[in-house]
């Protein structure tokens, strides 16, 4: 595959949480300022010639008609080219991929990808739980978000002997990492016992197996490698990306112990980057529920299928483990403001590759960081982006 490379020259986010005092637009402004401020040589926003906005659920903040023209005005760039990208939980990561293609094609020079999600202007019942009444009136009725993943936990436990303790170890690790991340929604440790004793949500998942509903925004600035020197001496490059889909109904899955969309999206990304899973130094993966991270690390090739629970319990994914996963705290601790999530994960990858992750910095050996989301009806869409310090 021949494509023009893309460089990341700035990235930033706001402190995730229940941001009751901030509007959608104010969150966007905060993330935009953070990304601008992160550019090493300073940055004049008028250099941006295209914006891609990632917002998954316009309905959550009452503006169902949200489109490309919502953000530029809020960040002082009214008039700039702007397009909204929506692709379920991978909305932010796919907006980044689309932005990269805009740069790689040579059509656009400097691109802002900004993810914003207002999850908490509505109560939990009216927010993601209300999803239970969407879709097919019978065949998906009652399918609130945990139902997309909990059946995989039931089956994974049945086939591989995965235990609730193994699931809980994911929450314990990610909450620990969240304590070290100043942007995380939750900044408290939890114990295995606390996770096991939390109220049941959707069997076999309990409350601390689930990510919170979080407001947030994140932004990233990309450009062509030859232009990157104007902005920084330490750019990070896009090594590859992949998106893949699967059938949308839960009863159409070829397996209930893995997510084929993740397997295929990562295969495409690895091939584009010319690397294998063993080359990845750090990964930010989609841990909307504890079981999801266990499926992810198997589907992404970090551990053998079926070993995800054991590997988590044995510490293979902690900050100084064999393959550190979710150093930012992941969706479980940092939060899951859907459109912003992927871009916040990419920001963490950018910091990790540049050695700016402070207490949660992991060892960078090969110079590759992987970012991943999966979701949508039947968890049928996945996006993987791979960043690298290697210029070529």
């Amino acid at each position, binding site marked *: 595959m021949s494509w023009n490379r893309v460089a990341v020259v700035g990235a930033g986010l706001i402190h995730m949480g229940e941001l009751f005092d901030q509007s959608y637009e104010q969150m966007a402004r905060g993330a935009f300022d953070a990304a601008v401020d992160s550019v090493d040589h300073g940055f004049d926003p008028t250099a941006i010639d295209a914006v891609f906005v990632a917002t998954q659920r316009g309905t959550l903040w009452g503006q169902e008609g949200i489109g490309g023209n919502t953000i530029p005005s809020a960040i002082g760039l009214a008039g700039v080219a702007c397009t909204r990208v929506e692709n379920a939980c991978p909305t932010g990561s796919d907006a980044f991929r689309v932005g990269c293609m805009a740069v790689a094609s040579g059509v656009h020079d400097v691109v802002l990808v900004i993810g914003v999600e207002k999850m908490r202007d509505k109560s939990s*019942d*009216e927010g993601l*739980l*209300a999803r*239970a*009444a*969407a*879709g*097919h*009136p*019978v*065949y*998906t*009725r*009652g*399918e*609130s978000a*945990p*139902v997309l993943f*909990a*059946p*995989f936990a*039931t*089956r994974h436990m*049945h086939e591989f002997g995965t235990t609730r303790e193994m699931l809980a170890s994911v929450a314990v690790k990610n909450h620990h990492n969240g304590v070290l991340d100043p942007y995380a929604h939750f900044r408290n440790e939890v114990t295995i016992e606390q996770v096991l004793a939390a*109220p*049941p*949500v*959707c*069997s*076999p998942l309990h409350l601390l197996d689930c990510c919170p509903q979080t407001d947030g925004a994140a932004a990233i600035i990309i450009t062509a490698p030859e232009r990157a020197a104007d902005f920084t001496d330490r750019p990070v490059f896009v090594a590859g990306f992949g998106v893949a889909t699967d*059938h949308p*109904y*839960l*009863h*159409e*899955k070829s397996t*209930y112990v893995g997510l084929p969309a993740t397997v295929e999206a990562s295969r495409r990304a690895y091939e584009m980057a010319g690397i294998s899973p063993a080359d990845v130094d750090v990964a930010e993966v989609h841990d909307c529920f504890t079981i999801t991270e266990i499926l992810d690390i198997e589907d992404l090739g970090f551990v053998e299928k079926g070993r995800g629970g054991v590997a988590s319990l044995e510490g293979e994914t902690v900050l100084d483990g064999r393959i550190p996963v979710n150093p930012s705290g992941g969706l479980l601790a940092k939060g899951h403001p859907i459109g912003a999530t992927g871009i916040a994960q990419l920001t963490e990858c950018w910091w990790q590759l540049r050695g700016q992750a402070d207490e949660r910095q992991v060892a960078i050996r090969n110079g590759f960081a992987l970012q991943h989301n999966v979701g949508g009806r039947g968890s049928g869409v996945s996006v993987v982006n791979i960043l690298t310090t290697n210029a070529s």
Partner: protein
Amino acid sequence: MSIAAVGVAAPEWRVPVASIDAAWGRSPGRGTLAVCRSDEDPLTLAWAAADRAVAAAGVAPSGIDGMWWGCTRPPFAEGPSWSTLAATLHLAPEADGALLSGSTHAGLDALLAAADAVAAGRVDTALVVTSDALLPATGTGHETSAGAGAAALLLRRDGGPARLVHTAHRWEPRLDRYRGDREPETRETYDGRLFREQAYLPMLGAVGDALLVDATDAGRWSLPDPDGRLARALAKRLRAGTTSAQDVAAADRTRLGDLGSAATLVGAAAALGSPGPLHLLGVGGGRATGCTVIVDAPVPGAERVTADLSGGEEVAYTRVLRSRGVLRPTGESVEMAVPPGSAMFGRGAGEMLGLLAARCVDCGTMNTPPDVHPTCISCGSTKFDVVPLGRTGTVQTFVVNRTMPSPFEAPLPLVVVDLDDGGRIQLQGGDDGAELSIGAPVDLVLRRYAVERGVPVYGWKVLTRRPVAGTDEEVTS
């Protein structure tokens, strides 16, 4: 006109009468009442009884060319009640029939209307369905008698093991239980003694006497027993000395409660298993009707009647009030994304109610539901046969969701089922899901998924299969 098969159904839930009395500070009454979960109603009960009758007869549903359904509470006061039930049963598209309602007399109305249509040669095979789930006003005495249940008969012109030989009618404009327009709950009789002396005993007594004019054998009786005492009083009156109390089958009154328009046929169902005359009496809305059935040989389906009515998960009164919508969480309910009046429901109604799949002509894969699958998920073919999915299978995986916004009721199981005859389907569980496990055998049953913007929406749910306890001894006791 002959009876070819019989089937019955009742909800699993039983609420002790004493628990209702306790909530209202009354002295405790005896017995239990069959009550609906929030996803059961007279239509789902009608389906269950009819499905069993059809199975017992061993006929193809497409060969059933008429259905007469008697019910005081069809799911739509005005609307597609009859056609919705027909779709769940896969009746012949040209099927004749009627929905009879208006009073508890509707059960006998349905039986005789179907019998007439068969006798006249208008239909070959007729389904008679009677079902009811009485909705009493909360806190009234009526609440300690109202039950739920259904019975169905399959009628043919001749050759069946039982035959209808005689009918009798009386009418008097008497007010018994009633409900006016815009009233959701059925009112109890104004004065129980008045009803007994002026309506129930004289009218049913006269009809019973008429049936016995030419009879040599007083036989067995099935009649409604609204308060648990009237049937016994009537039995004494009907040819005192020839009809003993144990010959009166009052629809298992002490365990199921008053079954309204379904009471007579539910009460008669088990008796169709043994030869002899059987007198059926119905009353309601100022009418009384009786008919005599001569059972020449056991009617298929009668042998499992006792087992099918023997369910019995005891539930608390508060759970009943919740399922009835009396206890409901404050705040807004989440609306279904697609309004039931929309074109999507028109496209999807047949396949949702009929549990239809698009079977790929090239590779056999079942694509469900058909209207969102123009392309086979396995091989990419675009050629399909639309067929009903089988209703038995095993659990591939499942969850029990305990965190649900209104109008959903937790715990709510969701189950992925591998169907025995091919295909896989994701559906809600039809109970609390406590018995679900991977690999467990399950059955699909019709349930009400929602009442959306006032419209009942039906689909199929998953129940873990339990061993059938029925034996000949139990049935004939």
